[in-house]
């Protein structure tokens, strides 16, 4: 285990964590402000990736595609909020889970009908497709560094938004007491749509960036969705800071676990078994961590209110 390898794997964990944060931030805002569990968040991630791939393919510019992807996801989010979510506020969690599960089915099949069942391939922009040397002898792809940078920038931007702007104040107030801010004259309906669209846009941004790195296909958002839920539960529902800490924790544990657990088991068994046991245990590790944290802090690490 050289320093360079360690640095590189740490950065990988960071990159994964940052991407999870983009998903988790939207999810935790929506739940914190609106009390809504949204399983269709993964579909918004997918929508951002598909729009980015299509726009990049036709215009040749990744940046246009990225912007289009995020905006399209935000617009789709707003539409979904107005059309479906409005009827679900105040309904029990069961209805929300099922309605958004239905939305997953609808979006997945709909996307398959429009784009076909084969994955789309999206190329990274040339300006970001090289690699850089880092201190410690590590070499790291520029695009992944860009993702880390973008994610941290979003985190900073969200902090400013939530803590320093009027909208942020309303959001914080809405998390504390929904009826009160309505009584104080804030247009709740519009606030909810804005918050939902913001979360959706972040998910779409994440989807577009990861789509360039991996591939764009139906169902790409689902593994990320589950981990995003685990992240916000660990971090504390409704808290952006919790989402960031939770996401980085999950990203690091998952990445490091996937690397070191197979190595550990490789000491006892053959490589194939070591990998399957090791990587599956790494996945289990995330859930074990969540259960442990909930045992000590039943509302997560940084619960939004009390």
């Amino acid at each position: 285990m050289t320093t360079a390898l360690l640095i590189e794997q740490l950065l990988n964990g960071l990159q994964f964590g940052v991407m999870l944060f983009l998903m988790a931030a939207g999810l935790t805002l929506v739940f914190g402000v609106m009390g809504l569990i949204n399983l269709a968040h993964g579909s918004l991630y997918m929508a951002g990736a598909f729009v980015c791939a299509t726009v990049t393919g036709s215009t040749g510019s990744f940046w246009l595609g990225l912007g289009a992807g995020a905006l399209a996801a935000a617009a789709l989010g707003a539409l979904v909020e107005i059309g479906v979510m409005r009827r679900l506020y105040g309904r029990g969690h069961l209805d929300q889970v099922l309605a958004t599960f239905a939305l997953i089915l609808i979006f997945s099949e709909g996307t398959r009908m429009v784009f076909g069942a084969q994955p789309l391939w999206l190329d990274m922009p040339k300006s970001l497709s090289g690699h850089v040397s880092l201190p410690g002898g590590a070499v790291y792809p520029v695009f992944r560094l860009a993702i880390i940078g973008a994610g941290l920038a979003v985190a900073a931007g969200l902090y400013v938004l939530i803590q320093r702007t009027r909208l942020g104040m309303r959001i914080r107030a809405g998390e504390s007491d929904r009826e009160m801010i309505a009584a104080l004259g804030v247009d709740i309906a519009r606030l909810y749509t804005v918050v939902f669209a913001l979360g959706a846009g972040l998910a779409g941004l994440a989807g577009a960036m990861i789509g360039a790195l991996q591939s764009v296909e139906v169902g790409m958002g689902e593994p990320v969705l589950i981990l995003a839920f685990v992240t916000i539960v660990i971090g504390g529902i409704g808290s952006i800071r919790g989402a960031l800490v939770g996401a980085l924790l999950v990203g690091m544990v998952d990445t490091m676990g996937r690397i070191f657990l197979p190595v550990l088991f490789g000491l006892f068994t053959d490589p194939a078994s070591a990998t399957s046991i090791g990587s599956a245990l790494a996945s289990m590790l995330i859930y074990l961590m969540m259960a442990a944290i909930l045992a000590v802090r039943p509302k997560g690490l940084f619960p939004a209110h009390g």
Partner: protein
Amino acid sequence: MAEPGNAIPDSPRSGGSPLPPLGGGLGRGSVESWLNAALAVLLLAAPLAAIGLGEPYYANLASRVAILALAGVGLNLALGYGGMISFGHAAFFGIGGYVAGILAQGAFNAAPVISWPVEVMGSDSMVPIWLAAMAVSGVAAVAIGAISLRTSGVYFIMITLAFAQMIYYFAISWPAYGGEDGLSITVRNGFPGLDTYDPLSFFLICYGVLMLALALSWRIMGTRFGAALMCARMNPERLATVGIEPTPVKLAAFVISAMITGLAGALFADLNGFVSPSMLSWHTSGQIMIFVILGGVGRLFGPVAGAALYVLMEHVLGGLTVHWQLPLGLILLGVVLFARGGLVGMVAGGARHD
């Protein structure tokens, strides 16, 4: 006032009989009873007709409906009556399936399934396998339920999901039982006196088990325990003031519900001759929820109606278009938003007021 042995007084409509009418709740009326009877008869008649017409394959399809309905009956007990939104019931479905698969393959290979601390041989007979599946699911449910029921609301949903995911990844990691590729069951398990390879016989076994589970569900809900369970869902504080702790009641219901779903998993493994980790995935948890919702939450025969509708759509719509999950999603969304009582609710009326 509460009488000894009968804490909740009978509703006037039920005429004071000790058991609730077949509507499954407290005085739901006779329309639902007729609907339930009709569903039971239809589910039996369809495969008989199919066999009469020389298409035994459809008996297998009916078995599939019966088994999925059974899984839903289990979940309905916890979710519908008990209000526990378990997003991890696939864990029990999969545990039942894997227990069945491992025991069956152990019998096929004539090797012990567990060697230490006690040697357990495999079995290729259905009833011992069912008992084992239910036992293991039950034990898992005690552990999962005890921890999960300390939380509530969205945390409960997430924690049940998390446990199911843990078991899912465990199943993938265990190479001895096929890992991600699943476990093939070479020979179908036997039932005394019947040829289980015969589609009709296998269906009758599944149907019989389903009817037994429905009867059990109905009986449970008619007891003091059932009433306490419903009260635990609607108003736990109130239940506590009557002197009954809600958590042990919910846990017991959770365990029974898990055992029924585990039994369904064992039958499912036998039907397909194959067990795969996908039985443990959250998609499967979602699907079982779909059966319950489509049919009607908290309705006795709700899961039967829901499973039948789902499988019907899968086959009829699936034969027309490969994108059949889109109309399924639309129907599900419609049911959640507008038809809250599900299929049974639409026909028999009487939405729940909670």
